């Protein structure tokens, strides 16, 4: 009798899927205490690195002399550099902003179910944007290496 009751409880637990246990929610809130300062720090570093990249692009364009022809005088490289830097900055900014919102929502998820749901959704978006950022960055590095070796 006891065995069949235990079996029924176990089957019910399995059928209902995964559970939001106290331990899991506590872990999420603990992570949000690291996630928030991490996103702020990444934002500061991101601004600093972006400004440096934009300054270098500006400096590179200011050194250009004569008429503009896309395929001459390294102009194609300058245009590629400008476009890829813009894409990298955009993806990183989106990732960090989504991450910041996600951790802020997850922090307040103790009393708010909507915050828990939206925070989790934004956590996925954070990973997606940051993967795109990293992917574009790596592709740019490889292309630049090939470019320099070909020159």
């Amino acid at each position, binding site marked *: 009798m006891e065995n069949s009751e235990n079996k029924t409880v176990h089957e019910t637990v399995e059928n209902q899927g995964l559970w939001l246990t106290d331990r899991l929610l506590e872990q999420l809130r603990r992570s949000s205490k690291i996630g928030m300062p991490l996103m702020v720090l990444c934002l500061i570093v991101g601004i*600093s690195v972006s400004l440096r990249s934009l300054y270098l692009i500006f400096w590179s364009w200011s050194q250009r002399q004569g008429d503009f022809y896309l395929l001459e005088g390294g102009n194609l490289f300058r245009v590629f550099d400008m476009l890829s830097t813009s894409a990298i900055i955009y993806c990183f900014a989106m990732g960090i902003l989504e991450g910041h919102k996600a951790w802020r929502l997850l922090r307040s998820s103790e009393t708010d179910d909507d915050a*828990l749901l939206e925070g989790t959704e934004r956590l996925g978006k954070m990973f997606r944007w940051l993967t795109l950022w990293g992917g574009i960055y790596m592709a740019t590095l490889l292309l630049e290496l090939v470019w320099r070796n070909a020159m």
Partner: protein
Amino acid sequence: MTNTPLDAPTDFNPAEDERPAGQWMEDYWAEIAPWAKRFAYVILAYYGWMVYMRLDILASGTAAYQSAKIHISVLLFYSPMLAMGYFSFRFGQDLERALVGRGQLLLEKAFRHLHLFLLLALFMAALWLWSSTVEWASIIQIMEEHDSSYEIPLQSE
């Protein structure tokens, strides 16, 4: 002592005030898992790139013993990045497995891996801030040198 099969269900009994995650939450987790793994691949690719580039610059033309020391130091220096990639991958993998096998313990383990990933990311971000400050200082110095080389000498000189 009884023999327990490896695929035996875990003894998970929810407390009275605990509730199921629900379909929406599981859908979001299912969305996060592959992206966390892809992010891990990007981190590992970047780790490989950085190690290769540093070794290419530092270890070329050095003696075997010196070269071995450089190899070890470079690998150690970038090891937090490697660990970051590992924890991001484990987070995605455990989350996927938890969703497929309805493993509550795996789910909790996945979020512990996320926590470790965040700790390492915080450390790496602090290093990145330091490196960015150093780069700014060197750029300002280069620009100052560049400007001073274009200064027109005074007529009296």
